[in-house]
């Protein structure tokens, strides 16, 4: 056997287990739920479940609501995390140390507990409202509203995203930044021409994570979201186990998979382009 053949067999053998897991855990269930979502309940197969998704008033507003919350969260998380990461990368001192030591704490608090904590903090008679009452400010409604869901999502996503971006930023050699500064490059140019392009890949990874995490989130939207419109995850649970319409739930599941795969495809394409550029 030639060396190349042996190498490619080894390569294939190493890829196979992970591919098998991917097949069993991801691909087959997606295909199954797609087939399930096509059945119309009376033996035939058609697109009626999907028609319902876009024609039912409640369901349509759920989709719009989910996309809106996801978009707002993504933008806010990226903004806050990038700022934090850059601040920690290029500054020193006690404040930076404090942030560095504490910013990951939310990652260690279970979702349900964090959500109940937020209810106690932000509820109409919560701590914040009581503290503000002393100074004569009435807290607007935050819980049972999209604001509550977005705040909870920020709490869950900022630490991880900041962690990802920090590690990308720490990979940028200080020499590049310093030499750019030496020739008189302004802060904005420094960011747009050097820092952002050098951390772009991680930025995309972070964005993908936040997007997928938020679009499929359940605990916080279930406990502090409104009854209508709902996030897709909550709606899926309701359709599946309360209304017991499995096919309809499968259609929602497949639809949210499609939404995620749009971003996934975008991500994979840019990765592939980069690989090609390297060759």
């Amino acid at each position: 056997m030639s060396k190349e053949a042996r190498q490619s067999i080894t390569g294939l053998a190493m890829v196979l287990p992970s591919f098998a897991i991917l097949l069993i855990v991801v691909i087959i269930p997606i295909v199954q739920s797609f087939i399930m979502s096509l059945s119309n309940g009376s033996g035939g197969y058609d697109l009626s479940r999907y028609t319902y998704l876009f024609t039912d008033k409640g369901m349509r507003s759920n989709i719009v609501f989910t996309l809106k919350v996801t978009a707002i969260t993504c933008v806010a998380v990226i903004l806050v995390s990038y700022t934090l990461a850059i601040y920690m990368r290029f500054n020193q001192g006690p404040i930076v140390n404090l942030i560095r030591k504490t910013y990951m704490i939310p990652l260690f608090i279970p979702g349900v507990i964090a959500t109940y904590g937020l209810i106690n903090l932000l509820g109409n008679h919560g701590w914040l409202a009581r503290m503000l009452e002393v100074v004569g400010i009435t807290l607007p409604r935050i819980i049972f509203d999209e604001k509550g869901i977005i705040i909870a999502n920020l709490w869950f996503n900022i630490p991880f995203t900041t962690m990802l971006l920090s590690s990308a930023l720490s990979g940028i050699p200080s020499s590049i930044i310093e030499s750019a500064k030496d020739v008189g490059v302004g802060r904005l140019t420094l960011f747009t021409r050097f820092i952002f392009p050098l951390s772009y890949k991680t930025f995309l990874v972070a964005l993908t994570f936040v997007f997928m995490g938020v679009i499929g989130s359940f605990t916080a939207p279930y406990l502090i979201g409104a009854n209508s419109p709902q996030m897709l995850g909550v709606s899926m649970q309701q359709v599946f186990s309360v209304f017991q319409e499995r096919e309809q739930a499968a259609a929602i599941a497949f639809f949210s998979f499609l939404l995620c795969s749009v971003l996934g495809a975008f991500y994979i394409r840019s990765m592939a382009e980069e690989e090609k550029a390297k060759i």
Partner: protein
Amino acid sequence: MRMKKPFLSLLTVVGLSVSLLAGCGNGSEVKSTTTGGNAAASSDPVKFNFYFTGSQNVKDLWDSLEPMFEKQHPDIDVNLVYIPSGTGAEPTYDRIVAAKKAGKGSGDIDLYEDGITSVAQGTKDGVWEQLNAKDIPNLSKVNTDTMKDVDNFAVPYRSSAVVLAYDSSKISNPPTTLDELLQWIKANPEQFAYNDPSTGGSGSSFVQTIVYKDLPEEDIHNSDPAIMEKWDGGFDTLKEIGPYVYGQGIYPKKNQGTLDLLMNGEVSLIPAWSDMVLQQLNEGLLPDTIKMQQITPGFNGGPTYLMVNQESDKKEAINEFLNFVLSPEAQEVIVDKMNGFPGIELSNMSQEMQNKFDGVAEGFRTFNIGDLGTEINKRWQSDVAAK
């Protein structure tokens, strides 16, 4: 610096073993229950699996009833499998149906506890065993009408009532009829809350009671889909009070959701399960000013049922257990632990117990509308929640 490495490797070991254990969890559980089944063939005690779901109080109840029973019957071993409310009741039922369809017998679930929806569903799917007083003598102590509602496919072993819970420091004379309640809601905007009916029984009871408010009494024992046409009036009422409830249309999740609002004073009147209110008053979670009021006609409340899997091969032992659960001594524990109503008729209980329930025993009506309960929730979601 030297400390770092051992700590890291310890962390890795712990992490690995946790993930391994998590992976094995399901498999080992199934295995252990099968070996239990095989052991039954020899002279060891007959072991059957009892799956039940609910809040912590339900678990506490069975944890105290099981040793009582096993002391009396050393030849029977009841294996309690507790599924916390909201996480796995549905999959448990699915497992029973799946095992039956696959010809795999009982699927290791011999006895199952749940509400009327599961009884109706299982009767339709043909998975429950029909019970009779010959095998379970104490069944004769249960109200015959209640048994007729479920065609003897389930044992109503305890009951709960939905009542109005109110803050007596804000309300001196709470509403006593449904019409008064509706007037009160409109007169006191944002002071009333009921929970999303698909997430908890007290909200569901409120919705069903309103929907069937002006319908004839026999309709609440009818699961004919034709009745759905008569719901319009009820749903109009629900839509009408929408702007007057908490947050002008906020319906918290789960029974506890509204109790939390009552607890921190955001609302002053809610429908709630009497046993939950009593228990939380006892534990000091609710302030002492919280009182309860039943309205007439009562809210839809009702029994919780035990169902025997038709495919189970340990029916004798199960019947023995059910007979015990319906005995006055076990029922007394249920009343004490759960603050609920007994499943058997009061006349079979001690005089002391009878006095305790003087005048409130008729505090609820049992609805048996089968699958229509799901239809109500669906329509509530699109008509009331989505406005």
